[in-house]
């Protein structure tokens, strides 16, 4: 079996490449940051003490407002140092203008101006140059709202705490029944993140390793090494050696990613994200499916990439034709959002059973809900059949196309080659 030598060559050359080492370690970082960065940004607290000048035309809101701003920074210091700027109903505009000048000079960070009409719906203003933190604005709004509500209710003789209790809102929590039958809290955000990471990794792996195969064939073709190879190795051994060798390199990369993933999901990441995204629940079996769908998807698409490599004379040729193969993988990627809303609809089930879509979409469905085992098995079965057909087709076109140079063949010629090889 000379496929072994071809396989070993493809494997060692693939994992020795600089690009392999870089992507193996950079991609997980990028993927992790997709999950972590938005959360980090959202929860990022201002690190500086913010100086606030409160100009209050009513005269009786500012003290309660300031009293409510008791937030502290991580280091225990107060987040805000509010000052009530003395003013009167008549000098309000003038004082307000004066404080704006103070912001310009840098003597204070924010001016919060509360007009007389605040009780009847007039807007207060938050004036700043640099403190554009939305969280701070929201914090002020809430504090001011509380004070104004309290005063309005008091004017009507109502008790604020009592009204607040009575008008407390209702929350509906998302729950899902798992495969084991237990009911678990689910978060759409967390799930979207997980599905996105897995599907993107699958897509990029299948695509980039498929391209690796196409490139390696174009190289052998361009340098005529292929003639030497075919004078001693059968096309079948050559194809199998390449598929397995390059596939194993991809498998190695995914193995490293899976290990990193298990460490992260079992360790630091959930702690960091749990509070914000809800439980990040990735059962280890998901990783198993992940690797399996990579292998299946790779075999299917690599066979097609081989055909492209075999019929192209230059790398540019191959690049242009790659779109044809990449397109069927883009469809599930683009419909992913829609798909996630209702992963069990007839449409979704049908799409996930369509072999070119199966790796990405069945993977997504497995993460979102546990599809019936027969659907998973059917998906795998259909893929295996398609792979067999694709590899057979590739082998036949390969044998003829690989020795052709120059003009790219038309579809009719491809069919002709296929028949010839038979």
């Amino acid at each position, binding site marked *: 079996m000379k496929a072994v*030598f*071809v396989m070993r*060559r493809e494997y*060692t050359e693939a994992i020795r490449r600089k690009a392999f080492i870089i992507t193996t370690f950079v991609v997980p970082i990028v993927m992790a940051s997709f999950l972590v960065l938005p959360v980090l940004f959202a929860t990022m607290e201002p690190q500086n003490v913010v100086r606030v000048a409160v100009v209050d035309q009513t005269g009786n809101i500012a003290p309660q407002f300031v009293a409510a701003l008791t937030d502290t920074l991580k280091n225990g210091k107060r987040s805000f140092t509010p000052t009530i700027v003395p003013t009167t109903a008549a000098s309000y505009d003038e004082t307000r203008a004066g404080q704006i000048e103070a912001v310009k000079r840098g003597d204070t960070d924010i001016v919060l101006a509360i007009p007389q009409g605040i009780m009847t719906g007039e807007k207060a203003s938050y004036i700043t140059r640099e403190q554009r933190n939305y969280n701070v604005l929201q914090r002020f709004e809430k504090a001011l709202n509380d004070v104004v509500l309290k005063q309005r209710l008091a004017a009507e003789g109502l008790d604020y705490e009592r009204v607040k209790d009575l008008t407390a809102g209702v929350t509906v929590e998302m729950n899902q029944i798992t495969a084991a039958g237990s009911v678990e809290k689910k978060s759409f955000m967390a799930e979207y993140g997980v599905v996105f990471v897995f599907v993107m990794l699958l897509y990029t792996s299948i695509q980039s390793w498929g391209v690796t195969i196409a490139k390696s064939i174009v*190289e052998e073709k361009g340098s*005529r090494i292929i*003639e030497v190879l075919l004078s*001693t190795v059968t096309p079948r051994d050559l194809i199998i050696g390449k598929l397995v060798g390059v596939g194993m390199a991809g498998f190695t990369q995914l193995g490293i990613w899976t290990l990193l993933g298990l460490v992260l999901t079992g360790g630091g990441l959930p702690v960091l994200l749990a509070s914000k995204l809800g439980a990040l629940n990735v059962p280890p079996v998901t990783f198993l499916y992940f690797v399996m769908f990579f292998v299946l998807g790779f075999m299917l698409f690599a066979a097609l990439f081989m055909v492209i490599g075999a019929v192209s004379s230059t790398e540019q040729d191959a690049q242009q034709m790659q779109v044809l193969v990449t397109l069927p993988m883009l469809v599930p990627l683009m419909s992913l959002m829609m798909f996630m809303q209702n992963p069990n609809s007839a449409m979704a089930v049908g799409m996930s059973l369509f072999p070119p879509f199966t790796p990405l979409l069945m993977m997504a469905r497995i993460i979102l809900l546990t599809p019936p085992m027969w659907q998973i098995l059917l998906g795998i079965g259909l893929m295996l059949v398609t792979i067999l057909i694709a590899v057979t087709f590739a082998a036949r076109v390969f044998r003829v196309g690989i020795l052709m140079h120059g003009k790219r063949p038309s579809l009719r010629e491809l069919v002709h080659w296929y028949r010839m090889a038979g």
Partner: protein
Amino acid sequence: MQPAVEIHDIVKRYGDYTAVDHVSLNVPAGTIYGFLGPNGAGKTSTIRMMMRILLPDEGSIRILDKDLATVNLDRIGYLPEERGLYKKMRLLDQMVFFGEIRGLPRSEARNRAGAWLERMGLADRAMQPVEGLSKGMQQKVQFIATVLHEPDLLILDEPFSGLDPVNANVLKDIILEYHRKGHTIIFSTHQMDTVEKLCDHICLINKGRVLLEGTLASVKQRYGKNGVSLSFTGDGTYLHSLPEVASYQDNGNEVFLRLKDGVDPGRVLDAARARLSVTRFELAEPSVYDIFIEQVSGDVR
């Protein structure tokens, strides 16, 4: 002794074009066999059919006394016309790979590759990618990769093209070394001086047909010795129309004339001296070059 290669009446067509047109030839075992012909003569197509890369439309090929379908191709070493190696692959790994796919055990391939690299003065670059080597070096490396498994039959398509004289000489020495060990070597070329020095058998093909085949000596004998080579100053084109001259070939610094049967060379010398200042005049057998030119330019089928 069985011939190393027997080709019987093969035909290869590409669409309407017939690249190889009923070619038959025998390559005796242990010879250096020169496969000559101008560009597009059908040399590469014939070689590719020997290597089972192309299938002949008609005819049969036997190699090393086996039918082509059953011959162990690992007993053959093949250097394709256009050269190439894996650019990014390390030199040693590359040679070991080519040895391995031809059936050498890994350790043996490694030892032999190491020895060859040592001999070629490339030992210190064994762990470097091939792309850093000069073109001539790469050609030598590829040649070594072709012979690493010590094949019984070596088929080289234009092995000397693009090599400088020093490297060509290195290659020639290796070919002779293999010849002495009893291996059969077939190579295609249009460098006639190499053929003259190296080959014991030649085959000249043109437009897909064999024009001449046999030992170098027999081919030359068929041409006879009635040739003269002369150098002179002046315009010698009129020699062409002398009644004694069968063919005229201007090689630049000399002119080769083939004389009609039974003609006295002295009469040609007189005719030449009548109008030219002759500096050299010698009776000669035709060189392969002369035969090649005469045959190919006369072949207006």
